[in-house]
């Protein structure tokens, strides 16, 4: 069933994939018309604590899906589980364990990924970045990029010894890497060691490196944390252009403006479960999401002067005057 979905998928345009979402009900675990990622019964326990307990969730192909939720909701653990960096507690076991129907299973692009290594997941086209960046410090920025390229013949031990066998491919990869670095404003850093980059630049490098592998789906763990506003703007543009190129994007983010701005679909997690799903506007007005995560004032910019009303200003003035009087008394004594 799922393989037919994968093969028919390439025919639709991005706009059609986005339009598909209009008919999807706004409830947790909703079925999507063209799911690229389907996750079932994924549970992860750390001792007595259940970090992730997702019954069913699907990610629509060709759109930008945001995964939001309070700290400790299990978003990153969920990322780790489906990318093979962690194993679900509910996975199938040779002896004992859950029954076949209850066991964790997930498929990506029509391929079952239940028991696959992280490297194999990446090879199948689902590439991730990390919340805490993993730049390869003692390699140059360009070498970091080249590592991301797939199917390199020079990575075979014996081929590696003879440069003519891999030189052409290396040159092609270098061209591609330089183009990506240019796009992410890192071109003049290409010969610097990655360890010398700033935190935000490392985020950019990691995203660019992930793109070197031509992923079908890219999973970004807090891509905007620590990136300056101007760069955030251009990054948003990049992420949208990835979608327009036909890539599926799933990202974790706390910046609600960004989520609202670019995501086609939002999945909300709380305490390890998916609690709400839907387009950004609908989800953010959902009472459960507001209570669990956003808070009543999520639409207000707390740094904005307008927020300080006249009565508030008067109250603050009065408090300041009282404080002054008190300190004046103290100094007299």
């Amino acid at each position, binding site marked *: 069933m799922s393989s037919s979905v994968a093969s028919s998928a390439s025919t639709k345009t991005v706009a059609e994939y986005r339009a598909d979402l209009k008919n999807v009900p706004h409830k947790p675990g909703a079925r999507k018309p063209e799911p690229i990622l389907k996750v079932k019964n994924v549970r992860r326990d750390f001792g007595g604590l259940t970090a992730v307990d997702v019954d069913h969730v699907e990610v629509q192909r060709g759109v930008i899906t945001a995964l939001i939720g309070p700290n400790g909701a299990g978003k990153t653990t969920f990322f780790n589980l489906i*990318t*093979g*960096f962690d194993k679900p507690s509910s996975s199938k076991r040779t002896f004992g364990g859950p029954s076949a129907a209850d066991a964790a299973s997930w498929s990506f692009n029509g391929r079952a990924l239940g028991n696959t*290594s*992280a*490297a*194999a997941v*990446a*090879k199948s086209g689902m*590439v*991730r*970045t*990390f919340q805490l960046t*993993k*730049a*390869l*410090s*003692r*390699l140059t920025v360009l*070498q970091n990029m*080249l*590592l*991301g390229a*797939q199917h*390199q013949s*020079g*990575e*075979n*031990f014996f*081929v*590696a*010894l003879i*440069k003519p066998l*891999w030189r052409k491919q*290396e040159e092609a990869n270098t061209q591609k890497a330089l183009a990506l670095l240019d796009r992410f404003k890192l071109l003049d850093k290409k010969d610097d*060691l990655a*360890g*010398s980059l700033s935190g935000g630049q490392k985020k950019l490098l*990691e995203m660019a*490196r*992930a793109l*070197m*592998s031509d992923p079908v789906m890219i999973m970004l763990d807090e891509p905007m944390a620590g990136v300056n506003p101007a760069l955030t703007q251009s990054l948003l543009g990049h992420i949208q252009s990835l979608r327009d190129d036909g890539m599926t994007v799933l990202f974790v983010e706390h910046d609600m403006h960004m989520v609202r701005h670019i995501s086609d679909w939002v999945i909300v997690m709380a305490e390890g479960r998916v609690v709400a799903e839907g387009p950004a506007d609908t989800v953010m007005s959902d009472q459960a999401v507001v209570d669990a995560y956003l808070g009543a004032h999520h639409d207000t910019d707390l740094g904005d002067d307008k927020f300080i009303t006249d009565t508030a200003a008067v109250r603050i003035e009065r408090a300041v005057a009282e404080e002054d009087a008190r300190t004046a008394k103290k100094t007299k004594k």
Partner: protein
Amino acid sequence: MDGIIKILYDMSASMILPTTAAFVIAAIGLNVHFGFTGLLNMGQAGFMLIGAYGFAISIGAGLPFWAAFFIAIFAGIAFALILGIPTLQLRGDYLAIVTIAAAEIIRMVGRASILNDITGGSNGLTGESFRNPFAEMSIFGDGQTQILWFEFDNTGVNGWWSRAVTWFMVFLFAAIVWLLMRSPWGRVIKSIREDEDAVRSLGKNVFSFKMQSLVVGGVLGAIGGVMFILPTSLQPDAMGRNMTFLIWTAMLLGGAATIFGPILGSIVFFALRLMVQGTMRLIVPDAWMNIQQTEQFSWIMVGVALMLLVIFRPQGMIGNKKELNFNV
């Protein structure tokens, strides 16, 4: 004056000794493990010993030189695989513990009196029992030759032939490591040293690459072991824990993760030790420190040097300072 000339002669002679070259080969192997891949191999002497046993026992059984040499290489490969399969999936420090234990197991088994007929027990195997096939391959003929102030037999036990072959191997293996490390294969290897998970997230099979690295370095260790026993004899205790630490010192002295670091480090290491020992012998009266004690003192200095090195110049003599500016 004579004393100083004697020290200088000893130092320069130690630089071209075949055992120094053998040591360098093992250090190049360790550099592949630690310097490039980040594998904490604390049992490089075990790889040397298993190569040495593989070679010496095969010759003793009547095999020709090349067959014995390849058996030594296969012994190194097998040892690496046996070590790596259970341990490479674990965190780095566990590999250190397992390798040091495995090297000790090899040494203890070799020393066991029950194997006296094969390994020679704790006495080991004499040089005569495995040396001849190598000497017979010599293209240098008989007689003696003087180059600069060195005069050695052309072929003999410790002559120009073994010097030429071992040092040729040193530069051959250094070239191979250089070829590997500039390639995409080397890039993956160095990336694994930096962050395994990042490499995994980009679709590389980290375990397979680490295993390849362990095998390459292990084979170099085994070949180093063969070359180490050729001009001398096979003594299991000569390739024990202290040998491992000497290789580490030499590699760190030269500079880990560099091509020439292990070569330069080993040469300087032996020369410096002889200088310390010779100078002590010359200026310290016998009543304070006799000949035996000056030698022990020079080894103590080696330990102190290793500590000072990793504290104040962790990049070694030719390592890149820039690379150490960030904590890894």
